[in-house]
């Protein structure tokens, strides 16, 4: 097996240069997909037969909710890689994930409650998905709080990595327990459109938005990653070249 690619991904100068090169690709394809998804979702897709035009919130709510979980998973994966192989770049990536994920978790919560008002008649319902989302926000806040509490970057990296890994093990447990708890109390779950019933004109824009948001995360992550690498790096040789001055 050839693991050179893996070793190269552990090398800050390589990753810095790679991130710089890849950012525009991610950014522009994300912009195109999101714009196309917006047009498809707001204009082309027909109103839902039950929820009318209100369902169109799904085109921002679902991608935000997807981001919150996907970013947390990426963060925990990066953290685990950093912890196990002591790769600084992986820790930098994990650190770059958290604020992005937290911001989209907030977006998912707000859009979810805006969707809830017309559907449930109340802005907040202790629905399992919203509740899990709220817990996820606290997991993000805990992660960022721990990072902020430790001055030394190396130690902050490793301590928060342990937390991220513990968190990701807990996410399914929390989700399961919240769903279980909810099923006992019989709250209505409106925020789900049956996937099989969704016609392509509704589904395609949604998929475009999901992909677009994911690529957007990629672009933001790459920019943040470069910032994180710079603050962690000590050898000045390549930085001078990378800064191009």
């Amino acid at each position: 097996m050839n693991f050179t690619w893996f070793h190269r991904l552990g090398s800050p100068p390589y990753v810095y240069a790679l991130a710089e090169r890849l950012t525009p690709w991610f950014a522009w394809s994300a912009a195109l997909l999101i714009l196309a998804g917006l047009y498809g979702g707001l204009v082309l897709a027909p109103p839902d037969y039950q929820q009318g035009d209100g369902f169109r919130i799904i085109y921002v709510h679902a991608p935000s909710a997807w981001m919150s979980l996907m970013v947390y998973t990426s963060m925990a994966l990066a953290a685990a890689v950093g912890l196990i192989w002591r790769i600084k770049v992986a820790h930098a990536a994990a650190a770059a994930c958290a604020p992005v994920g937290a911001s989209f978790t907030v977006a998912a919560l707000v859009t979810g409650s805006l969707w809830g008002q017309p559907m449930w008649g109340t802005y907040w319902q202790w629905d399992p998905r919203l509740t899990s989302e709220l817990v996820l926000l606290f997991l993000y806040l805990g992660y960022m709080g721990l990072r902020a509490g430790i001055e030394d970057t190396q130690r902050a990296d490793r301590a928060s990595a342990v937390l991220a890994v513990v968190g990701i093990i807990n996410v399914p447990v929390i989700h399961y327990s919240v769903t279980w708890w909810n099923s006992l109390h019989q709250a209505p779950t409106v925020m789900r459109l049956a996937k099989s019933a969704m016609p392509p004109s509704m589904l395609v824009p949604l998929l475009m938005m999901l992909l677009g948001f994911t690529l957007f995360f990629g672009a933001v992550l790459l920019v943040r990653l470069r910032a994180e690498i710079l603050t962690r790096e000590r050898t000045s040789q390549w930085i001078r070249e990378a800064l191009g001055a």
Partner: protein
Amino acid sequence: MSTGSLEVENLHLWRGERHVLRGVGFALAAGECLKVTGVNGAGKTSLLRTLAGLMYPEEGEVRWCGRNVRSDLRGFQGGLAYLGHEPPLKADLTARENLHYWIRNRRQLSEPLLTQALIRVGAEPFAERLVRTLSAGQRRRVALAGLALCLVPLWLLDEPATNLDAEGQRLVGSLIAEQLARGGLAVAAVHHELPLAGGAVRLLELAP
């Protein structure tokens, strides 16, 4: 009698923005003591903690008997005794109880041997008193008894003579000498002169 050898190569340690250890290296054979000097903040404590495997250097390695200590960290740590700034004693236990819980965690220990160690460091008169009632120097003596009782090849001592009177400082010197005579090694960070009776002493000065 060879118990081990310690080789340290090109250690680099960063704490945040501070480059604490800049390429520290030395080799120490059985029966030798390394005296580490340097002004406050030069990284003496960091060096000892890195040697003990508590801190992880960015570069360089520590080898025990020719093998990187990271390959069997627990085995290596079982063979060293580390004495930090503060004696690792519980204020609400007596001196004797403290040694009981500290040392028996690592090795079998007979009660007479424990008593003899207490006598050796002059801590026998206050062995049954709670540590919170002891003076700083008395606590230090209890900690030294623990150190001697570990009976491990490598000692890492951070200012071992702090708070001790002249007689206590001689005691530290003779304990180290005994350790070297047993074929052990010692690394001691000191800023006072250490009255070391015999044994081969190497010096390492850390630049700030």
